[in-house]
């Protein structure tokens, strides 16, 4: 057998290009039997294209072998903090693949696309209810794209107020996700970092000191990346508004609060949600996602194009808001992801969504209770959807890094938690179990973490070289970055 299977020999050394044979093919293309039109001039055409030549079965086997070298939610517990790796219901895929929906063309006139648009309208209404911010655009393709929409909207509103020249700063907590400061910079703002207080919330004194007529907005993740509620955020919202700024909400952690508190009631002006997290759509190894942006009445005219609206004639249409920041994608967003999110909302209803947030929070606190004492817990408070432990004691006393702990967890059959984020926690281990893990899975995860902590004392070397059972061992990332090999080349094996 020429093709080694997954985990066998040096599977990664041979790409599709190395696996084919000249003359093989995976699909047939019918030939054109009628009269032929001459092709355009040669100087507009290519001679050939280098691509692999595999049989259909060969190609299927190769990708199947690759998939076997991957870990998904369906493979096991995936407590990747900040990412809400909850179960992805299969019915969502079934309905998104209905031909009437999947084969809809993005340029179709409104009357031909009422089913898709009605789904989007009802999802918009539902998200408006759940967030208390009734104005929605589905244009953003992911969370960071939603952030970009929100910050552009703030900039446009400031232009209309004649304050864009003076309000040049956005305040971002030091616990924020990297996309927040990167987004602010893409929109031309300067970032001022706000420290986190001892209780894990924004440092109020710094906020009060920094808030002035140069501040455009404050970007706050709620709940924050420590898994904690931002205490007094509704008062901070008042302070921001008094100073003439806007409160931006990163809603990536909405899973904690679905049905329990609303951004609009708290005074947020604009937020994005990550439907690929809270609304259970598959993460796809890094997308597709969907990052709808939701806002107050004041900012609604600036929403990205398009927004979905029902006319007096009962026809649902996509329209451009009056002072829209413009489009963010050529068409109208990740429609198939929206269908999945809508199916999730309809399968759960309000009671189900409240049960989900309740169980997600209960599960995170269960991890916190069971793991307490085995790792440091810098912010020792009841948490919401996730809990951030620290491996700093293990690092200091045993020379074992969180990196090693994460790798060893793989040998226990788990996907590791998020590590080294948020940046304010040294050697961070950010654990988000989500509501879809049963208690026995959480207990097994905690047992594994405890056994790894014990092993760090008795046999640190085993951790330093972990994982031992994965399809491949630790990789040389330094050389990968220093001498990048980024594509197949004839002689690259």
């Amino acid at each position: 057998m020429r093709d080694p299977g997954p985990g066998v020999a040096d599977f990664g050394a041979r790409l599709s290009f190395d696996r084919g044979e000249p003359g093989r093919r995976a699909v047939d293309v019918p030939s054109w039997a009628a009269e032929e039109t001459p092709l355009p001039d040669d100087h507009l055409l290519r001679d050939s294209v280098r691509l692999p030549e595999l049989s259909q079965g060969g190609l299927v086997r190769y990708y199947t072998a690759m998939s076997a070298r991957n870990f998904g939610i369906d493979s096991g517990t995936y407590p990747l903090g900040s990412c809400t790796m909850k179960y992805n219901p299969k019915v969502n895929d079934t309905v998104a693949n209905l031909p009437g929906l999947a084969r809809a063309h993005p340029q179709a006139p409104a009357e031909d696309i009422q089913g898709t648009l009605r789904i989007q309208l009802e999802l918009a209404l539902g998200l408006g209810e759940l967030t208390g911010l009734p104005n929605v655009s589905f244009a953003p393709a992911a969370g960071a794209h939603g952030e970009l929409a929100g910050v552009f909207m703030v900039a446009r509103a400031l232009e209309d107020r004649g304050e864009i020249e003076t309000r040049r700063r956005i305040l971002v907590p030091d616990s924020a996700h990297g996309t927040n400061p990167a987004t602010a910079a893409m929109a031309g703002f300067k970032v001022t970092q706000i420290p986190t207080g001892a209780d894990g919330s924004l440092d109020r004194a710094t906020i009060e000191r920094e808030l002035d007529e140069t501040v455009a907005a404050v970007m706050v993740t709620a709940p924050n990346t420590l898994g904690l509620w931002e205490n007094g955020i509704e008062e901070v919202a008042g302070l921001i508004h008094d100073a003439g700024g806007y409160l931006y909400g990163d809603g990536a952690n909405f899973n904690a609060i679905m049905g329990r508190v609303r951004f609009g009631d708290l005074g947020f002006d604009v937020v994005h949600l990550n439907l690929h997290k809270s609304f259970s759509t598959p993460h796809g190894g890094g997308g597709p996602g969907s990052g709808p942006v939701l806002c107050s009445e004041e900012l609604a005219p600036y929403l990205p194009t398009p927004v979905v609206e029902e006319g007096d004639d009962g026809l649902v249409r996509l329209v451009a808001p009056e002072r829209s920041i413009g489009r963010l994608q050529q068409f109208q967003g990740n429609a198939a992801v929206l269908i999945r999110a809508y199916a999730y909302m309809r399968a759960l209803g309000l009671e189900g969504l409240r049960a989900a947030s309740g169980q997600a929070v209960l599960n995170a606190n269960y991890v916190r209770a069971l793991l307490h004492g085995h790792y440091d817990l810098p912010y020792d408070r009841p948490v919401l959807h996730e809990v951030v432990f620290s491996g700093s004691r293990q690092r200091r006393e045993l020379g074992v890094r969180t990196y090693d702990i994460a790798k060893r967890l793989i040998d226990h059959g788990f996907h590791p938690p998020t590590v080294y984020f948020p940046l304010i926690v040294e050697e961070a281990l950010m654990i988000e179990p989500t509501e879809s893990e049963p208690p026995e899975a959480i207990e097994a995860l905690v047992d594994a973490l405890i056994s790894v902590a014990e092993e760090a004392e008795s046999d640190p070397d085993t951790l330093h070289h972990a994982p031992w059972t994965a399809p491949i061992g630790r990789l040389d990332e330094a050389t990968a970055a220093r001498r990048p090999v980024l594509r197949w080349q004839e002689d690259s094996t």
Partner: protein
Amino acid sequence: MVSSRSSASPHPYIPATGADRARMLERIGVPDVGALFADLPAAMRDPAIDLPPALPEPDLIALMEEHAGANASPSRPDFLGAGAYRRSIPSITGYLIGRSEFATSYTAYQPEISQGTLQAAFEYQSVVCELTGMDVSNAGLYDVASSTAEACLLAARVTKRRTVALLEPIHPGTAEVVRTYAHGAGLGVDAISSPEEIGDEHACLVAQQPDFLGTIADLEPLAEAAHAVGALFVAVADPFALGLLRPPGDAGADIVTGEGRDLAGPPNYGGPSLGLFAARTKYLRQMPGRIVGRTRELADGNGGGEERTGYVLTLQAREQFIRRERATSNVSTAQALIAVAFTITVQALGPSGMRESAVLCYQRAHDAASRIAALPGYETPDRGPWFQEFLVRGPVPAADLAARLAARGIGAGLDVSARPEPEARDALLFAVTEATPDAHVDALIGALAEIGGEA
């Protein structure tokens, strides 16, 4: 809907039972789940929210079938293109990306258990480089328009110039997204109708291949015009057409963007899409998005000294989670699964299939166009060599022609009659591809003839 879920039973997506919860609450030391939310402001907790009731799975499917039925029939003849083209997608593509090891994983932060995603992304980067004729590719961005906007931002960074030039006719959606991003970044955008209008104030010249009205561009003179004023040349190319057309890299492009959705699966009302982004090596460290690199196991790892080949996310010092406000882009989650689908389709077609399908597409479209042009009262205004899209001017105004086709159960091409190009006056833009059934073309010809007879 007649039934709804009984709220007494636990939800199938949430495994914990009432007994489980009681045990967990006791261990945590709180009386009930509500107590865990004590930090939320009391006055705002548990607000009244109006959502439709939960549905059991069969009712959910029935509801979604009802919604799907409210769209136009997916099997009716339809000639829309204008940025999204119906392609013949091999069955294996949807089947393989349906494997949940791919679909339910996330960004490959732990390469040891993410080799599937990483190796597939490396395959993707390789295929994109081959098709576009470029040195390096990232692992994919959101869509063609946001990719093109990122290319403009890159060009502005490296040239330190503050205006970008878009050559018309370019897709209006692409142009609008470039304007959205440019405005936010404080850059100007000039729409130009000839490469002669480019000047040394421009960071880049952006041109679409084929252009928005379907015409095949000769990219080399465009690249030369851009380079003559020290600007980058950005080609926005349809990767399917590149099975036949000259790779933009060959013609001098510095960056190539494109839309990968059509080769990944059905149109899905435009999304998920897939933004191609490939460039010359010298721009590598300025590129947005994830990049996957090939490497080996560490010698002191556990591979028994074999140092097997593996794949990792690399050059991450560009990215938001390390660089924060100094990152090259804010992109995090993109369209990884769609990139895998795109790659599988391209590799299934292979070197001969890519060319054969592009030629089939070309022949089918040209055959349809000449049959239409032969009908009394119709013309297909000529704008030079074209690939799969053509303008049709009929005996009645464009909107009227579209309405009369719709009345006959046929989706017309996009109405482009408001565009400034003289050939587009009163015209619809029709797309015919390798995936358009003969019967659909026949139905169109019949309908057009009938409409011609009425006029």
